[in-house]
């Protein structure tokens, strides 16, 4: 475990530096803090889109990240965003440590735990941020630990899932995972034993637990509807994972390969593991966002099986368990944990400000109310706090009807009707990246003029008609 601690410490420092500078990288925090401030002010969760958008006023909205948004809003209001940044990095590190502990409980050796912990850490790199699902990872890891412990402890899964559901809709996976675990138990016992009954009961409890949110049954309904939503095709995290993704080739794939080589179900009659593997391994290839879920679930299995060849008396493990070796590794980890943030501070992609805050401030400074189209819908999240800006689609994206979404895509990709879409919605301001097709097309039009061109962004406003509502 000590080596695992060292590995997690290195990744923690990498994730912490990313988290501290996250507001400059991800516009989603904009709408999340806006949602949270509304919750704090009105003490209820909004159920519909309001006039902050002009395309879908009144559309139903399942604000599934309400708890996370509230925490973000509170930290913003008190100027201590660093607290939630540290909490996010700690949550990710905690998930890794719990997974390592699960491996240790299963009798995995030092080398095996170290290797699988490193893989699980890599699987998180791509999706990590100050985001609600990071806390979902921690709760998933704890849920898996509770299942591993078995006995009456397994009922703890129900409050864990309830808490998870309040953070993020990925909690709907929990009943499926616990159900698969229960089926695995039933295959192992080949009878209706108390253990099977307990697990089935827990799985049923988890189904109820995902409804234990202020959103009640809306959350699972929302999660199901997302599976067929056209929005998924546009969001990078929902794209199938690719072999060139570090989270796949250095993270989930080696773990899947270890499981495939050693076999997780049959050798020890661990069908519980087999069922979880069958669920999560294909998921890893379906979407980038599932990679950490897969890795955290199967890492302990892989470590356990790997230990069958890397036994406790193999030279590698003997060396790793020596005090001197551990002291050297701990020292190296501390050095890395210090050097990595210092080095990354100069990397603009991590610590720079890449969002169009100035561009949106420029539009907001123009008198009147503006209907704003953002080429990247997430940028419009930054406009929600501007009282005279209304968004076409913003980072919430899920509640916008498919027709609005298709219109948004039509403009972004310059479909034949792109100009009529802008006219139909009375859009009078467009924010694009410089050089992108939409920017090129608007630059060719005489009815649009650029009012902002800096830091890689351009803002166009419609000529002759200053505002949407003056």
């Amino acid at each position: 475990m000590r080596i695992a601690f060292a590995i997690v410490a290195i990744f923690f420092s990498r994730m912490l530096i990313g988290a501290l500078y996250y507001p400059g990288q991800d516009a989603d925090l904009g709408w999340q803090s806006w949602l949270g401030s509304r919750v704090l002010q009105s003490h209820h969760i909004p159920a519909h889109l309001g006039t902050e958008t002009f395309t879908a006023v009144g559309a139903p909205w399942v604000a599934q990240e309400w708890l996370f948004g509230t925490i973000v809003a509170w930290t913003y209001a008190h100027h201590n965003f660093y607290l939630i940044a540290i909490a996010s990095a700690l949550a990710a590190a905690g998930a890794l440590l719990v997974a390592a502990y699960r491996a240790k409980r299963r009798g995995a050796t030092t080398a095996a735990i170290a290797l699988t912990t490193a893989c699980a850490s890599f699987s998180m790199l791509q999706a990590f941020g100050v985001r609600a699902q990071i806390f979902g990872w921690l709760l998933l890891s704890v849920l898996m630990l509770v299942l591993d412990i078995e006995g009456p402890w397994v009922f703890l899964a129900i409050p864990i899932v309830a808490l998870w559901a309040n953070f993020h809709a990925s909690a709907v996976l929990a009943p499926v995972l616990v159900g698969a675990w229960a089926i695995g138990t039933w295959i192992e016992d080949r009878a209706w034993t108390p253990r099977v009954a307990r697990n089935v009961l827990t799985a049923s409890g988890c189904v109820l637990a995902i409804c234990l949110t202020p959103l009640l049954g809306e959350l699972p309904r929302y999660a199901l509807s997302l599976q067929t939503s056209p929005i998924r095709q546009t969001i990078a995290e929902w794209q199938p994972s690719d072999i060139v993704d570090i989270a796949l080739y250095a993270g989930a794939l080696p773990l899947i390969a270890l499981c495939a080589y050693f076999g997780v179900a049959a050798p020890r009659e661990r069908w519980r593991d087999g069922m979880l593997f069958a669920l999560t391994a294909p998921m890893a290839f379906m979407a980038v966002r599932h990679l950490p879920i897969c890795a955290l679930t199967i890492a302990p299995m892989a470590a356990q099986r790997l230990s069958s060849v890397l036994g406790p008396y193999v030279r590698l493990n003997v060396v790793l368990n020596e005090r001197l070796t551990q002291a050297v590794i701990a020292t190296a980890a501390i050095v890395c944990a210090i050097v990595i943030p210092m080095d990354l501070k100069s990397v603009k992609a991590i610590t720079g400000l890449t969002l169009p805050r100035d561009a949106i401030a420029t539009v907001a400074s123009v008198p009147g109310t503006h209907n704003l189209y953002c080429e990247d819908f997430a940028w419009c999240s930054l406009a929600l706090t501007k009282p005279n800006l209304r968004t076409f689609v913003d980072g919430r994206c899920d509640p916008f009807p498919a027709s609005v979404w298709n219109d948004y895509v039509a403009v972004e990709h310059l479909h034949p009707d792109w100009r009529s879409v802008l006219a139909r919605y009375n859009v009078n301001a467009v924010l694009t990246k410089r050089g992108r097709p939409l920017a090129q097309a608007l630059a060719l039009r005489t009815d649009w003029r650029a009012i902002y061109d800096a830091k890689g962004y351009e803002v166009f406003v419609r000529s002759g008609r200053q505002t949407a509502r003056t």
Partner: protein
Amino acid sequence: MSRFGPALVAFAIAAAIVSRSPLLAEFLVQLRDPNLLGGPIFAAVLTHFGYACVLALCAALAACAVLVAAWRARVRGTTDWHATLAAALVALTMSGRAGLSLDPIGWLCAASCALLLERDDDSSGYQLIAVMAVWSLLQGGATLGSLLVLCALIGKLTDDGSFDASYRKRALQYGAAIVVGVLQLHAWPWHGYGAHALYLDALKAGAQRDRLWNGNITAPAIGFSAILIVAGWYGLRRRGRMTDAVTFFALLVLTLLDARMLPYFGIVAAPVAVDALASYYVLARSRPRGTVRSYAPGVIALCVAFIAAIVVTEPKVAMWPPAFGQPAPLIAYLKEHSPAPRVLCTHPRWCDGIAYVVPQARAVADDRTGITPREALKVQAAVANALPDWQTLMQADRVNTVIASEDDSVAALLTARGWHVRAAYLTQVVLQP
């Protein structure tokens, strides 16, 4: 195997014959490929015997590949049931690309190579060289065969643990097979279809390469997942052969790199995975006990379910007669009005038919991205995505015709700059100044 043989044939042919139609365009361009003899042979069949015969030939080749893979499972000591399962898994992985293509030649050759590597004796070594020679003459995937043999060679060294005389002899045979596969006998030293073109350029092509998952749950993806799950449940280590593991994982990585490799992964991995499964169920070795007739309803039901699954998840396969993948009317327009255009297609596949129909036309890039010059790919990507320097690159390359979807950004930008839509077919348009 004998009991299930006829059922397997029906099963495999049914799977192969439901063609994924847009591959026709690729097929036509393959026929004109001067480097491989498979194209001219298929072209001769097409000319003298008609479309149906080519389709039947492809189906027969795919069916044979499935059968050889099932045979390999049987050679490994599994039962008829397990061999049938292997066949089903292989057929599932093929279902996305089964149909009119030169690929089935490669599938059959790959399955034969895997079978010969399984036997691992002197005569198989020589037969392997012959198969690799035939493969390299007929189809461009022979380098994959070389990789397969190389993996087997590495795995065998690990398994044997010594570089003894027996291993050295086998290494010589396998080495010859590798060389034969890589060197393309008729196009010495080699003509573009090397490992670089096939695999490393897949990385270069980036988003253009085929992905395993397209966001939907498809029959090939189900086949892939099933093989992975069976391997994950039972473990490749069970048989204690590194050869299996090395080939399995090499093909797994290639499949993730480019989904066109999925059938090859199925052919190589499915027998290994079901063998691991079979090793745990000793009781199943005595089955099946019935006759073909007694199992016929079950097998027919399985075929129906299988075909239904493919038709539901891959709607294109149900289309009959198969449509051209490339916009044929637009290419006909070019033949009539622009005899020697410099054409750029925003989707390279659409340009496949041009070389076949308008011999004087020059396409910037077609679907053979593996052997397309890097500069041409750069122009193609810049224009297709309307990157900031697309106009400069297009002018430098003297492109005077663009075939695009009306939804493509570049179509809107070109019309805004004074180009005109000269012809339209469905959502595709020909744009010229």
